[in-house]
Structures are given as C-alpha cells and as structure tokens.
C-alpha cells in the first residue's frame, strides 16, 4: 500500500520542478553580448552619439509588437549618405533585432518596423555612413507584457 506523500517528498518534488523550470528557460542576452554584437558591426571603430533618432513609445503595453522608427540626419547624396542602420537590444534572447541597408537612392535615411521586447530594457540604433563613421542613439523602453519567451 503506498504511503501518503510526506511533507518532505512534496518539498523535494517542488524543488525538482522549480529546478527544471529554471533549466528550460531560454537564456537572455546581456548588455555584454550586445556590446559584442555591436563590435562585430563596427570592427572596433569609434561610435559617436548623435545624428540617429529612435522613435519608440517609452511605455509599451504589449512587447509582442512594438512600433519603432529609426531615422538619421543625412542629406542622402552620393557623397554623404547612410549605408546601414542596425538595431540592437540588451535583454531579449539575442542582441540583434534587425539590420537595414540603404543608399543615396533612398532619399531619406529612415526605416520603420515592429519589434518584440522580452522585458524593459535599453535599445541601441547604430548608423554607418559612407565615410565609414558610426553614429548611435539609445533609448529606454518599459514593457508591461513581455514577448518572445512565454510558452504557447
């Protein structure tokens, strides 16, 4: 006849379940991983703040679809234009969000999309100009309903 579960059995089971939940949780990117991803793009070239503007709501209710616009002050001529805009985050499972390539035929250095945010965090946008210089903007976003990591 099986004995009823003791308090200790229940605690051990509970601890085991908690442990397995921790193990299966996806690892989040860290600010260090974001710095590494940015370094891969810039190859160590200096990044200056300025020229780039991130437009995103400061308080996001639903992290599954966050509208974001990145624009860069640039005449977008053959002599002076943006070649690439890259968007990074520090606390989603992966630091990269998206990379967008453009040129003088774009007319404006501006791209809008919708992104996922797993939690409140800082976003970084980096623009590469045709002279090889890098410019950036950072913005903090507060997220009340997270995306990406919740189970279906």
């Amino acid at each position, binding site marked *: 006849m099986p004995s009823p579960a003791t308090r200790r059995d229940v605690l051990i089971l509970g601890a085991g379940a908690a442990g397995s939940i921790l193990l299966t949780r996806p690892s989040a990117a860290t600010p260090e991983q974001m710095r590494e991803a940015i370094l891969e793009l810039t190859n160590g070239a200096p990044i200056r703040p300025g020229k780039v503007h991130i437009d995103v709501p400061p308080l996001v209710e639903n992290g*599954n679809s966050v509208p974001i616009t990145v624009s860069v002050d640039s005449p977008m001529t053959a002599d002076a234009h943006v070649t690439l805009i890259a968007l990074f985050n520090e606390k*989603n499972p992966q630091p990269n969000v*998206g990379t967008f390539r453009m040129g003088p*035929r774009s*007319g404006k250095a501006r791209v809008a999309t*919708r992104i996922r945010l797993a939690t409140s965090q800082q976003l970084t946008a980096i623009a590469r100009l045709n002279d090889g210089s890098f410019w950036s903007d950072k913005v903090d976003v507060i997220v009340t309903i997270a995306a990406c990591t919740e189970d279906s």
Partner: protein
Amino acid sequence: MGRALINVPATAKAGDIIEIKALVAHVMETGYRHEVDGKPIPRDIINHFTCAYNGVVVFEADFYPAIAANPFLSFTTIATETGVLTFIWTDDKAEKQVETARITIT
C-alpha cells in the same frame, strides 16, 4: 508564406521621395518558445527582405527573431523611372515570396 500587403504610390514625379510599406503574414517563430509538454518549437522566421526598383536593389533588411510576427517595414526610395518594384522575402527554409508593384512616373 502568407498574404502580402504592399503600399506603393501608383504615380509619382521623377525625383519624388516615395514611402513604401510592405507587410507579409508570417508567424516569425522565435525558436525560444516551448510546447506545453516542454518540446521546443523550432525557429521559423523570415530572415531577409529585398526591394528592387527595375532590377536594382534599393533597400535590404536582415531580420532576427526580435522582429514581430507579420513583419512590417516602411522605408523610402526616390522615384526615378516608370517600372516595377520587386519585393522578396526569404525564410529560414530558403523559401521565397515574391511580390511586385508598378509605379508610373508622370
């Protein structure tokens, strides 16, 4: 892949900067979620997008799992000549969805 929505002005003056909006229906499964039984749901995203104007690529994007489902893009290009804009989305299985839009320069 699913239905695509593309917004390109039907006519424009040469030299005008036109705004293009493109959206395609796609789950953009991140690869970071699990079934109720704990099985991971494999990653399935659109990872690349290009827009070509009469065969010349004018805009390109690389997507990561942090791009929301039904990926939406808005970008600009200068209207140069009458012709066709071609939009190509490529997913993780290397499947492509191709859509086109005509533009007439007045």
